[in-house]
């Protein structure tokens, strides 16, 4: 495409009110805005890649707004208004808040130009009455989320509703496609392509490593040829100004709190106009927020924002942010995406950045103008994180990107979609198969898998076909599948979506007062306000009297009341329960390789803080530093145990799987491993016997991914949670039914039973397969483990030592209660049963 020519024409074609509006603001339309406009006018679906702050959203809406302007305000009573009219433009975002934010931002040009356009948002938070109305009389532009699309498509008026659609705008597409929500959306888009074949799709994305994945996702695929949308690459931003905090403090060996650097983070906030402090987990956010206020002698306006805070509280912070009232916000990834938070001039990223692209997106939150460099400071929480931060800094400066490979569509999501289509109108199995395969994530779906998915939706699968409850679609006289019962439709709509919330408990702040019963020491508690929600898993670990951090305060846990956790305010400064859980994202393959390079190359240590360089120096002297392509394995005794520590740098999940498999093999070799602990960077196994004599090549052989893995999975309960998610998405288990608010705990119990029973009686059930494939890429990270074993084959560097090495210290410090392989449990049982005998024999009295 000749961009310049197209831009020229486009500018000429941009309607006068628009040119005038740009003028009135002292702006000129940006080249990528005009290029996108030209593509859309030519009827081409297009992907626009531009960094944050490039006027991307406005670019996406320009074609739709000009088209609506040309249409003019419809006459009252015409077919284009009121009941029976369809949508003109669909805007889909991954975040509810983003949809709301975009609607607000778009309000300005629309009202200033006086455009004849109606727009509304529709999310899970939209009141039912309005949602009902929107279904019958939609606005011109609907701003919504993937779940709502699925819901709207399940109604029988979908052909009218979507039939007149002209534009579909997919915002933050890079984020949408990377999950099961992306799978669900792709299936919805495949249906919309049938209903409105001419609608133009516009994808908006941050900079990604592989734009072609998104270009394919955006348009319907055909069996004959790969289809791709057009592509417009916006101008790159100025190279960001990224540095790693050169801490004056002692950098910890392990841990993730970054506590040593709180003072320095405070100084950064003080020196900035508005700083965003990104952390990886909710509990980390709580802790830093608390500590910053403890040293906040200047009373700087520092706020807290994360996903489990009460909605009103988040809205307050967001509003203050937009007004520019805040100096600092401590936040989790809820603020990662493109919401415009006004004048942020500094991003502080605490902890490991995990991936180069992820870091760049965070950095992009600062300085929303393209011509200014974004400023960011990385704060590593421990010594290994220093290496990771330095690697990420290099990547950010050089504009290098990483990212996950494109997804293969989830089977559970497909099952949900199939039912949704039956709810809308009876379908022909072959026609729907073709339609599904036009969605890029399902392009390679086989007819055999398709038949099994259909069978699952129709019967629940062999093991469950005895029950009517699982018979959700049936064939009608015409041979088309329809929903078996109106109740099925109702259940589908209640259970739609792919985000399975962790079971959450409401945290309620109560007050103590002497009980009416008058019993001493048993004060009754009386109601107070809700502070937000925490994971049930976390609450289940607490006992009455434990203190923990939440919502920026130290709270004392009092007890449970159904789905509420009752707490009182505590005057402790130090919460007893440190609530750190590692982040969800593993270190990216790309950064891992860079970290290994740094380790192997002492020349590069100049850029490291002196204490970290010194640490590596001692390692070199005491043990070995592995070459970039080597896997270092150290063995050494310590107190009454023997250790084997290796350093693959492949992320905690892959290490954990490796640990499970290695201990199993070591046990078979007679080495009696007792346990292991996995960190992002290393794996440590300990046992009663010296492991330096084992055949390491055999131990680390790739064949562990065969029988050993199968045997492990057969015994392990690890996959139960993954199964629960799949079963809920596929509709085997309900999230909630009217009048029957199941608590998360109940759901877990029943899905565990189902899992066990299916595993015993129908091990090839399609949901078990879905569970397995989810776990292989997620929880167990088998794909990455496989790559690791391939990579290190013939490159094992074994170093027997007399004592622990400097590199091993962090992972040994991490040793906590980790599950061990079953045989060790048996050994412990045996040992315990023998203790009595030994005690008897050695007793002195």
């Amino acid at each position: 495409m000749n961009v310049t020519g197209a831009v020229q024409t486009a500018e000429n074609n941009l309607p006068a009110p628009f040119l005038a509006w740009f003028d009135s603001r002292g702006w000129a339309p940006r080249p990528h805005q005009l290029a996108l406009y030209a593509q859309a006018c030519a009827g081409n679906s297009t992907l626009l890649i531009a960094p944050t702050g490039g006027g991307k959203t406005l670019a996406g809406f320009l074609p739709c707004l000009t088209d609506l302007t040309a249409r003019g305000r419809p006459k009252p009573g015409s077919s284009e208004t009121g009941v029976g009219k369809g949508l003109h433009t669909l805007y889909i975002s991954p975040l509810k808040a983003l949809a709301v934010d975009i609607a607000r931002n778009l309000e300005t040009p629309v009202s200033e130009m006086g455009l004849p356009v109606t727009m509304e948002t529709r999310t899970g938070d939209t009141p039912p009455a309005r949602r009902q109305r929107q279904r019958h009389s939609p606005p011109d532009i609907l701003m919504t989320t993937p779940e709502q699309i699925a819901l709207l498509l399940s109604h029988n008026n979908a052909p009218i509703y979507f039939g007149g659609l002209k534009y579909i705008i997919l915002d933050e597409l890079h984020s949408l496609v990377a999950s099961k929500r992306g799978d669900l959306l792709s299936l919805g888009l495949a249906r919309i392509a049938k209903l409105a074949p001419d609608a133009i799709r516009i994808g908006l994305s941050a900079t990604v490593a592989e734009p072609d994945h998104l270009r394919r996702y955006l348009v319907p695929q055909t069996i004959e040829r790969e289809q791709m949308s057009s592509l417009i690459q916006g101008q790159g931003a100025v190279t960001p100004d990224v540095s790693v905090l050169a801490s004056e403090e002692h950098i910890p060996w392990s841990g993730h709190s970054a506590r040593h650097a709180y003072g320095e983070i405070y100084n950064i906030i003080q020196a900035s106009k508005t700083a965003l402090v990104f952390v990886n987990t909710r509990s980390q956010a709580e802790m830093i927020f608390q500590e910053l206020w403890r040293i906040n002698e200047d009373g700087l306006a520092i706020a807290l924002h994360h996903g489990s805070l009460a909605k009103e509280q988040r809205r307050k912070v967001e509003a203050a942010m937009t007004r520019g009232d805040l100096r600092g916000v401590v936040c989790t990834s809820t603020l990662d995406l493109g919401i415009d938070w006004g004048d942020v001039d500094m991003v502080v990223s605490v902890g490991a950045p995990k991936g180069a692209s992820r870091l760049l997106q965070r950095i992009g939150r600062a300085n929303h103008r393209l011509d200014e460099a974004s400023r960011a400071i990385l704060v590593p929480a421990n010594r290994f994180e220093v290496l990771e931060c330095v690697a990420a800094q290099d990547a950010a400066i050089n504009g290098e990107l990483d990212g996950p490979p494109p997804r293969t569509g989830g089977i559970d999501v497909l099952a949900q979609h199939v039912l949704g289509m039956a709810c809308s109108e009876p379908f022909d199995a072959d026609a729907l198969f073709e339609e599904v395969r036009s969605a890029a994530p399902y392009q390679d779906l086989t007819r055999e898998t398709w038949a099994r998915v259909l069978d699952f939706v129709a019967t629940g699968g062999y093991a469950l076909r005895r029950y009517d409850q699982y018979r959700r679609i049936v064939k009608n006289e015409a041979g088309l599948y329809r929903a078996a019962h109106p109740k099925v439709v109702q259940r589908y709509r209640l259970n739609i979506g792919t985000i399975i919330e962790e079971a959450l408990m409401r945290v309620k702040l109560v007050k103590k007062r002497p009980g009416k019963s008058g019993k001493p020491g048993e004060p009754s508690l009386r109601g107070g306000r809700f502070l937000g929600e925490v994971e049930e898993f976390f609450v289940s670990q607490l006992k009455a009297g434990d203190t923990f951090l939440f919502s920026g305060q130290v709270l004392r846990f009092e007890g449970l009341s159904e789905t509420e956790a009752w707490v009182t305010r505590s005057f402790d400064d130090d919460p007893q329960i440190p609530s750190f859980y590692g982040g969800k994202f593993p270190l990216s393959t790309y950064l891992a390789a860079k970290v290994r390079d740094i380790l192997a190359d002492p020349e590069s240590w100049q850029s490291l803080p002196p204490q970290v360089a010194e640490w590596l120096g001692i390692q070199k002297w005491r043990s070995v530093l592995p070459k970039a392509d080597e896997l270092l394995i150290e063995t050494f005794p310590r107190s009454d145990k023997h250790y084997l520590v290796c350093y693959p740098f492949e992320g905690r999940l892959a290490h954990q799987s490796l640990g499970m498999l290695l201990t199993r093999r070591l046990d078979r070799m007679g080495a009696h491993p007792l346990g292991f602990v996995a960190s992002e960077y290393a794996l440590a196994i300990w046992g009663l016997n010296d492991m330096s004599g084992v055949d390491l090549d055999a131990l680390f052989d790739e064949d562990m991914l065969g029988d050993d893995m199968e045997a492990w999975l057969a015994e392990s309960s690890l996959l139960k949670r993954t199964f629960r998610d799949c079963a809920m998405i596929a509709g085997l288990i309900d999230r909630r039914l009217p009048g029957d608010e199941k608590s998360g705990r109940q759901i877990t119990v029943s899905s565990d039973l189902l899992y066990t029973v299916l595993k015993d009686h129908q091990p090839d059930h399609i949901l078990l397969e879905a569970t397995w494939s989810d776990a292989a890429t997620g929880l167990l990270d088998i794909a990455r483990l496989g790559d690791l074993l391939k990579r290190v084959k013939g490159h094992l560097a074994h170093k027997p030592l007399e004592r622990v090495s400097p590199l091993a210290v962090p992972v040994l410090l991490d040793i906590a209660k980790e599950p061990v392989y079953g045989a060790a449990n048996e050994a412990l049982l045996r040992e315990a049963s023998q203790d009595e005998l030994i005690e008897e024999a050695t007793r002195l009295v």
Partner: protein
Amino acid sequence: MSDYSFHVAGIRVQPDLSGAAWFPDLKTLAVADLHFEKGTSFVRRGLHLPPYDTKATLGRLGDVAEKFQPERIIALGDSFHDGQGPARLDGDDVAAIQRLTRNTQWIWIFGNHDPAATRGIDDLGGVALEELCLGDLTFRHEPQGTGGEVAGHLHPGAAIRQRGRRIRRKCFVSDGASLILPAFGAYTGSLNVCDPAFREVFDGSFRAHIIGREEIYSMAQAKLVPDRTGP
């Protein structure tokens, strides 16, 4: 250690990994709390489980009967999860139970889940009784603390803590005078023997015979730990 045994009221008993107790001198096998048709009982609560728990329990029962070739099998009550259980059995399971009751002297002891009123149990063969005395032993469902009892009902389980790790399994529990068997059924859980309920049965100290993967581990009471208590 497959022939590991101890004595209850002077009579030798061999605890089996399956959870059954074998009394070689009485040629009697005892099993407790089979809870047949527990799976289908969930339907009433809206949970549709594959109805295979009965099959699984029967399969294990067949194996252990094959192993010991008992003359008599005593099911110590709660053999059915509820009074309607026998009516919900599918044909294959009925046949499998009838095979067992035909080939041995089969005793159904009544339990609280399947009291004397349980319908259809007579059609399965065997004899249904409140309790049964054999020599110095009384086989009943709910232990009454009288000594000389072989009972079920409590679903005993035990936990130990060794090298900082907690391990919890089903177990047999005995003070030498009485014995409580673990629940045999497929979908059954267990109650920690540190629970006060066990103090009502055993005055003094007792031992837990913990079911491991390939062995039974005998553990003194002092070695056992209670469950972590919730808030």
